[in-house]
């Protein structure tokens, strides 16, 4: 059975901002897919739909046969548990120690009381240590998270996903803030994790080279629509040129998905 099925999924933000204009997609369990495309194309929005943070404005989205429209409350939380996300800006809690950020991957399985207790006395130091070791920064376990470099924080975010042990891993531009050699290492790490643990892996990549080198299926997104969905050897320079035409890549790439770009609300 398919893991994800999307039929004409569109997402329109308030004030007529069309982020996704109707995407069809189907993902089988264990697949490894890279998404590429210019900034503003809708890749982040797509991932936030896939990890059940946002709801489609129209169209339908199934996850393991469940229509996500129907998921609310506890069922929604239990379904989210199955999906681990690595975000572009790491999205860690800066003032917490690394160990708590890592262990927060367990929250979906912990009781509320237990997780509060863990803030005082970490419940599972052993697993956190293990996960951090896998990403190569186990010595930082008790450091405050905001004292780490960008690359180290990205590793903490990956360790959090390891601890969560989801069936699906989504990574939204996981390497856009690290230098190229580290970027390759991180992508390789994600691939290894998903291969060894039989996880579905979907990655947004800023770097076309990494996408073509490591992924058996590459999807090009532009203006909120999928323009191709191919194996890497079928992706020609012409296709790539079309994909990025009319777009002038800037350094550091986008950071336009700020939560509420609307004007402040007077209460």
């Amino acid at each position, binding site marked *: 059975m398919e893991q994800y099925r999307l039929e004409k999924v569109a997402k329109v933000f308030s004030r007529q901002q069309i982020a996704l204009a109707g995407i069809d997609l189907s993902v089988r369990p264990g697949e490894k897919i890279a998404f590429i495309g210019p900034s503003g194309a809708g890749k982040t929005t797509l991932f936030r739909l896939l990890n059940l943070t946002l709801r489609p404005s129209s169209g339908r989205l199934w996850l393991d046969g469940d229509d996500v429209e129907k998921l609310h409350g506890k069922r*929604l*939380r239990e379904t989210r548990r199955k999906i681990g996300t690595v975000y572009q800006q790491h*999205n860690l809690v800066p003032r917490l120690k690394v160990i708590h950020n890592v262990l927060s991957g367990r929250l*979906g399985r*912990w009781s509320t009381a237990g997780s509060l207790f863990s*803030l005082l006395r970490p419940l599972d130091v052993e697993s956190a240590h293990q996960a951090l070791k896998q990403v190569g920064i186990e010595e930082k376990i008790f450091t405050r998270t905001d004292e780490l470099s960008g690359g180290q924080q990205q590793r903490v975010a990956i360790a959090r996903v390891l601890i969560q042990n989801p069936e699906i891993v989504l990574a939204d531009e996981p390497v856009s803030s690290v230098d190229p050699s580290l970027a390759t290492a991180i992508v390789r790490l994600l691939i290894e994790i998903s291969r060894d643990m039989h996880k579905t892996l979907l990655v947004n990549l800023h770097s076309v080279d990494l996408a073509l080198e490591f992924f058996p299926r590459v999807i090009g997104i532009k203006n909120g629509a999928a323009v191709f969905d191919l194996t890497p050897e079928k992706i020609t320079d012409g296709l790539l040129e079309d994909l990025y035409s009319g777009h002038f890549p800037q350094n550091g790439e986008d950071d336009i998905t700020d939560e509420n770009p609307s004007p402040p609300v007077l209460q």
Partner: protein
Amino acid sequence: MKTPARLSFNNSEKSVFPYLFGLLFVLTLADSWRRVGVDLLVFFERQGRENIVKFLGGMFPPDLSSGFLALMVGPTLETIQISVMGTLIAIALGFPIGILATRNFSVGGILNEADTAGAPARFALRFSIYCFARGLLSFFRAIPEFVWAFMFVRAVGLGPFPGVLAIGVAYGGMLGKVYSEIFEAVNPRPLEALQSTGANKLQIFFYGWLPQVFPNFISYTLYRWECAVRASAILGLVGAGGLGQQIEISMRMFNFNEILTLLIVLFLMVAAVDYISAKVRAIL
């Protein structure tokens, strides 16, 4: 999420609103001046001058007799106890209600988007809880602690207990309101990440929300405690224990030199509390 009752002023259009508000403000100010009877000349008139001299003159020297000072120890401690207990009750009320009164916790924003989409009943429930929490906080705050104290004295009798309740309720309202404002200003990205692991809202609150605002949270709570010390000193005027009771007695007996002593004690107390909270803030 759509926010109900969104007020927005479009700057690009020429609007009469700023002028209207300006005019209204000036009129309000002028009228207030007249009505409140601001009359600075009072200080220069004979009668006024004599009153002031009598009061100030009567204060010196302060009554530092050991008998009076010994009498002050109990009420001073009681005042501090009222402020501490009152502030604790205020936190116990203001913290949970303040969380519910936080818009992006209760109804809007990324933590409610998927959960309330296509579920109007859920949305309505959350919106009502949010409105109820805000309403409750407004109600607590709208009534001055002095009036609360007055009512609690009627309800539970004289002594420190009504003072504690008065501070607890009135300050609970203030703390809750400001807590909710502090919480609303949080960076939502880490919260989104926590939510996507399957965490529930309370877990998200304690892992992602509180840590981000912790220094602010403590700082504001300490500030409110400082205010509570001053407030508990005067609540005694309506019979709610503490130094205020003594102030009231001395006033009634025209023992102005005792009043000065009381003011000195009050000053020292507030300075000490100030010092303690500055120390605590420095640790954060």
